[in-house]
């Protein structure tokens, strides 16, 4: 579905992605794990067009989207829920959801998708007239995911949705990721929360210093010696 081929990317003179190649397959949950600063967020930003590649290719469903402007990437069905939620804090919950559905088909389906989101996240329905900035951390993350769903994604890219949440809430978010995936949405998940994500994902890649290292199914990586010592602290 999504293919990165030898992607190199730099911020000014500092290169942060080195020959990154990987593939996301239709309907799976793919996890990109890696330490802080490994280049996970940079990878997602490159896919969504916020950063331009220095060389390499990004192919989505057969289309070369390497040079596509960021605002058009979403129209292809790739939705990026950025790290740190990045909500529109001075807008209400409902307005944030509306902002997720500005284009094409998603705009036509707006009210219907919104109801589906409220079913998935009843808390957001209770707080729909509240400003996003006044929500709790967990609620904000739910809103960020819901705002992404409003765009009717084919591929949902989530950047550390568990960041800063209490363990109970982390489990809730992962449950939501699973149920979103069950509806047929492909998920590319970026996480530092290695242990729990590896248990429910289909496949995973490890990113180290801007390079793709080991990959395999979640189970394989959980049993990998390097992963155990470097990420699981075993």
């Amino acid at each position, binding site marked *: 579905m999504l293919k990165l081929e030898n992607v190199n990317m730099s911020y000014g003179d500092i290169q942060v992605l080195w020959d990154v190649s990987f593939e996301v397959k239709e309907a799976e949950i793919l996890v990109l794990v890696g330490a802080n600063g490994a280049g996970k967020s940079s990878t997602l930003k490159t896919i969504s067009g916020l950063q331009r590649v220095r060389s390499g290719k990004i192919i989505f469903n057969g289309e070369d989207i390497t040079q596509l402007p*960021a*605002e058009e990437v979403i129209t292809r069905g790739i939705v990026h829920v950025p790290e740190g939620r990045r909500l529109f804090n001075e807008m209400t919950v409902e307005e944030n959801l509306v902002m997720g559905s500005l284009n094409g088909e998603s705009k036509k389906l707006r009210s219907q998708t919104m109801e589906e989101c409220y079913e998935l996240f009843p808390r957001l329905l209770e707080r729909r007239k509240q400003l996003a900035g006044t929500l709790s951390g967990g609620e904000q993350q739910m809103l960020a995911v819901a705002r992404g769903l409003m765009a009717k994604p084919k591929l949902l890219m989530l950047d550390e949705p568990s960041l800063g949440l209490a363990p109970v809430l982390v489990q809730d978010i992962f449950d939501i990721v699973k149920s979103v995936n069950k509806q047929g949405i492909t998920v590319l998940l970026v996480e530092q929360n290695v242990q729990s994500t590896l248990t429910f994902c289909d496949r995973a890649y490890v990113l180290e210093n801007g390079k793709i290292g080991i990959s395999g199914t979640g189970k394989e990586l959980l049993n990998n010696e390097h992963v155990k010592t470097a990420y699981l602290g075993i």
Partner: protein
Amino acid sequence: MELFLQTLVNGTLIGGLYAIIGIGMTLIMGVMGIINLAHGQIMMIAMYITWVLWQFLGIDPLLSLFISIPLVYVLGDLMARYLLYPLMEKESILPENQVLMTVGIGMVLVELARTIFTSDYRSVQTSYSDIVWRLGHISLSVPVVIDFFIAIAFTGAMFWFLIKTDIGRSIRATAQDKEAAILMGVSAKKITILTFALGSSLTAAAGTLFLPIYYLYPDVGPIFTLKAFVITILGGLGSTVGAIAGGLVLGIAETFGATYISMGYRDAFGLIIFLLVLIFMPGGLKSLTKV
């Protein structure tokens, strides 16, 4: 007491016009992150358009709103598209350079006006210019009252647009988090150009409305840029509701100063308020409400 009330009313009426100048400036500041130091000059252009339409074609200023606003919209679009946005695209160029660009635009507009229209004072005398309504002991100048209500209508329409339409929401979203807005499919370029053109149109509306009650000469531009700046700072930089409050405060302060102290220093009182706010309330009026 009557004088006090009269002054308050006059100040409020002028403040309504100041408010739309301030809202225009605030929108531009929110989305582009810059102070538009050509704001008053753009308003001056609208005033000259209105004056020409009156002088040579006999068109009433209220009607020329329908001409001056679209013309200035196009002017604002072109300035943003070809002069300001190209500076924004290059990350290496500091936002300060865009501000300098607006200074340059402002100077060019003033000198252009001086070349074409000379420095002579111009004004427009409509049939209703001198009509006054009496409300008890308070007298209301008809053109000023009409202008005030039109300003309220523009303000209302602007708020409706910002709150109820996708494009309006996109403008607010871009001001709050540009990168997140881009991820939602908002074109930062389109929104930037649109916002500058809209902000310019609002101040154009104010200019056209001001003409029958204000003298026009090229240096009116810089004076109003300064007023717009004061209103925006009073409003707490980037808050549209704050800009309305800022406009009213400036209008009332100026009118009180002119009435109770000296007519000649009218424009200075706004600046005094401005300095006081900068010193004692750096967050603007917004800091009073803690929002």
